[in-house]
């Protein structure tokens, strides 16, 4: 019998969070305490890189919740990621205070440069961390809710829905490029100094940011795993496969989609917010349609509809990207495209599917236990 945790969570769902927890402890220790020459030591740079991968993993997890379970292929999830990132970026900008190049007590440098006289109203409150943190979730959440409300109610599905998600992120890309939007135009927000009063470049801060990202990913993973293992998660799986049948059972399909979609957007926003202080910049490039499509590839590579696969895929592909872009940058896009084609043709269930196939093949070589009662219900 498999062990089942309260709330129907399978014990195997604890593996990844435990690994992340271990990383959240190990990386800060390796960065701060282990002397540099030791093979167990880690540079601040690597910690930042890993932190970035985990942010991507969180975005992939969010995407898998809607794509893998509800069948909504979003080609615009980067928009929610970027909005969360901008909310965090606005906080970091306000933290600079009078230390900007122009030394203005309130206005960020780019506003002074554009001859703005006062802070636009939508920048109010972002000097307070709790407010900014709330906006990190609320802005992507509300946008997703409004978008989903109209799209799902009008029963836009499949390719059409994917296209309008792409249009959404493209529209935001164009908007955020504009200087008069008040988000720094194509330079975006950068030159951050501090977060919560800690110097952003300090190794301790970087290590803490990594730990925070690992923890956030672990918690979001558990939340997502709990959702998909609940009866609501089964409704989602069911509507992915046979939407109208779910309606005739009496479920309001739109409400389920809206729930998953909004939750997913908030997770993506959180991922973006954790990303920005670690990379030190947020600009409209994050809204680029290509960025959202890349996230889809991570999930496909790892294995859609498994949650774990999304995390593995994001880390693997980005690891490969870091290697490629330093070794032979001009080939990265070809490699990515080739990978996607390969996975779609030969690994429809992704890397995780391949591993579990190999595993069950090895398992069937062993003798099956006669008392191997499958479980689904007590």
């Amino acid at each position, binding site marked *: 019998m498999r062990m089942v945790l309260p709330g129907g969570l399978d014990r195997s769902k604890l593996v990844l969070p435990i690994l992340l927890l271990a990383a959240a402890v190990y990386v800060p220790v390796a960065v701060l305490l282990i002397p540099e020459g030791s093979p167990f030591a880690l540079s601040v740079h690597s910690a930042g890189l890993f932190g970035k991968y985990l942010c991507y993993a969180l975005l992939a997890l969010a995407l898998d919740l809607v794509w893998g379970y509800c069948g909504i292929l979003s080609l615009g999830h980067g928009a929610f990621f970027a909005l969360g990132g901008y909310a965090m970026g606005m906080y970091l900008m306000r933290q600079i205070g009078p230390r900007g190049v122009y030394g203005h007590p309130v206005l960020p440098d780019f506003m002074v440069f554009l001859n703005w006289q006062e802070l636009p109203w939508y920048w109010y409150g972002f000097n307070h961390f709790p407010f900014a943190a709330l906006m990190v979730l609320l802005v992507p959440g509300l946008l997703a809710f409004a978008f989903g409300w109209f799209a799902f109610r009008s029963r836009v599905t499949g390719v059409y829905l994917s296209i309008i998600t792409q249009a959404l992120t493209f529209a935001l890309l164009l908007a955020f490029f504009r200087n008069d939007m008040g988000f720094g135009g194509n330079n975006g927000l950068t030159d951050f100094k501090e977060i919560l009063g800690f110097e952003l470049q300090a190794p301790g801060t970087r290590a803490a940011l990594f730990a925070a990202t690992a923890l956030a990913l672990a918690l979001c993973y558990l939340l997502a795993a709990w959702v998909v293992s609940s009866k*609501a998660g089964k409704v989602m799986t069911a509507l992915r*496969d046979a939407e*109208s*049948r779910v309606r005739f059972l009496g479920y309001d399909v739109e409400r389920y989609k809206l729930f998953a979609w909004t939750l997913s957007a908030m997770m993506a926003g959180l991922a973006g917010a954790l990303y920005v202080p670690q990379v030190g910049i947020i600009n409209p490039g994050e809204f680029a349609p290509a960025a959202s499509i890349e996230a889809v590839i991570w999930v496909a590579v790892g294995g859609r509809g498994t949650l774990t696969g999304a995390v593995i895929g994001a880390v693997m592909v980005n690891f490969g990207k870091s290697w490629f872009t330093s070794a032979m940058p001009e080939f990265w896009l070809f490699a990515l495209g080739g990978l996607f084609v390969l996975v779609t043709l030969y690994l429809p269930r992704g890397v995780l599917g391949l591993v579990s196939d190999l595993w069950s093949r090895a398992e069937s070589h062993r003798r099956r236990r006669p008392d191997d009662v499958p479980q689904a219900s007590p």
Partner: protein
Amino acid sequence: MESLLYLDGVTVSFDGFKALNGLSLVLQPGEMRAVIGPNGAGKTTMMDVITGKTRPQSGTVLFDGGTDLTKLRENDIATLGIGRKFQRPTVFEHLSVWDNLELALKAPRGPFSTLMWKAAAEHRARINEILAVIRLGDRRDRLAGGLSHGEKQWLEIGMLLAQEPRLLLVDEPVAGMTDAETEQTAALLRDVAETRSVVVVEHDMHFVRALGVKVTCLHEGSVLAEGSLDSVSANQQVIDVYLGR
């Protein structure tokens, strides 16, 4: 007695083609009705109208005395107590047999209720009971996608039972079944009909005879004949358009 389902003058046209043409049909509470008719007669379209999938251009569709079904969405109609089995068996292939039944089980349908839902002893007992009726007890943990065609048909009937609907619409339940399975299905539907109203669409005349209920024959979107199977099958028009072919 007040009728459970009341259709009057229902017309549905697809680009000018009338799939239903002034269809009228009245079903009493607890009644079982067999609907026959040639391909394209409008049988499935009639079910689409009752369940809210298709909106009629004109006509009245009332449930349980006064509820106007043409104004409601599919899921609201389902929660009123109208269950439907499709012509092609549609079960949730990536969920286990047990989960399929659990989703169908009569219980609150909102996302937050299902998020917090835990199967109580009575729910499990009910699912086990249904598993016994549809003879899928030993398959309960299998993915529904791995079932045979006949087993899927039965699972879908089981899901309808779990829904505890007041009105059951069953579209060609024995298509693709063996003779033995057909007999069992007829017996099962007769059992079901003791506590609720059922509309069965079927081409299989042996099956319809085994049901032994009032028959409605549709043709080109309206009722051609209605009555006992013997009187309907003796009707010359029915013989011409349907039985005689």
